[in-house]
């Protein structure tokens, strides 16, 4: 069926079209490492994209380390000013709270690690 259509299209072409086709025709250009260079560029771009998030996180952590440490100290000194009953209230309501927080953090770390491995 396809060849029939092609034949029909070929018959519809006039001499002028064939002449133009022959004039526009050119030898195929040798690859000469062109595709390898593009592939290399693509790989480099992929690698950069993968590195951006961890590197940005690391830089962010380094930059924010001092202010966060100061914030934690300030919050710690604030909690000492709060009444003891208020601080122990959430733990009394949910006794497994520290375990839940720890589990959540582990889960998040695992998910991030799996994603990195998958990449």
């Amino acid at each position, binding site marked *: 069926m396809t060849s029939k259509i092609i034949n029909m299209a070929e018959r519809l072409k*006039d*001499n*002028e*079209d064939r*002449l*133009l*086709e022959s*004039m*526009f*025709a*050119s030898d*195929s*250009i040798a*690859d000469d490492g*062109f*595709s*390898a*260079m*593009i*592939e290399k*560029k*693509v*790989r480099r*771009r*992929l690698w950069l994209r993968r590195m951006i998030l961890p590197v940005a996180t690391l830089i962010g952590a380094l930059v924010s380390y001092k202010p966060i440490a100061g914030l934690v100290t300030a919050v710690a000194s604030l909690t000492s000013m709060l009444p003891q009953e208020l601080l122990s209230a959430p733990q009394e309501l949910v006794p497994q709270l520290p375990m839940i927080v720890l589990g959540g953090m582990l889960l998040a770390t695992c998910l991030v690690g799996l994603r990195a491995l998958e990449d």
Partner: protein
Amino acid sequence: MTSIADHELVARAASSQDAAAFGELVRRHQSHVRNFLRKLSGDITMADDLAQDCFMHAWDKLHTFSGRGSFIGWLLKVAYTTFLQSKRKSKRYAEILEEVGHDAEAKSRTHAVQADEVTDLDKFLAVLSEEERAVMVMSYACGLSHREISEATAMPVGTVKSVIFRGKEKIRTSFDIKDHQHG
């Protein structure tokens, strides 16, 4: 990987960021894209630079390839857009150079065609407008159908046909092709 169809390679490259699959696509189509850009720009070095840009754009936009038309049609669309963008940029650069008084450099930048290697085809292409040149090259050098050219250039099929007709008319009147047609 050479026996795999283009569409499958595109799917593989886009979904799993497979650089090898994309590399195979580049290997298959680099000649067409570079030929198209060489004919369009008339400058081999510039065309090869544009071809690199084109393939990198294609990699970034691979997910936008719907798979309805041929991959080479889509690739030539990216190549044509890259060419137009670069032309706009160099035009703006030439304008700035002119504004600051570097007329000679500005003129040399706007005339990219190398005078030392003028072929018959270059003479034909010279009489065509940029749009006609792109459409004629897509049609006669790359073998794209009118529909594919319409998708690549964002022109209606009817306009593509009339641009080809106009281009042929220009070549015919400029080079007296009638003689060849009948003999």
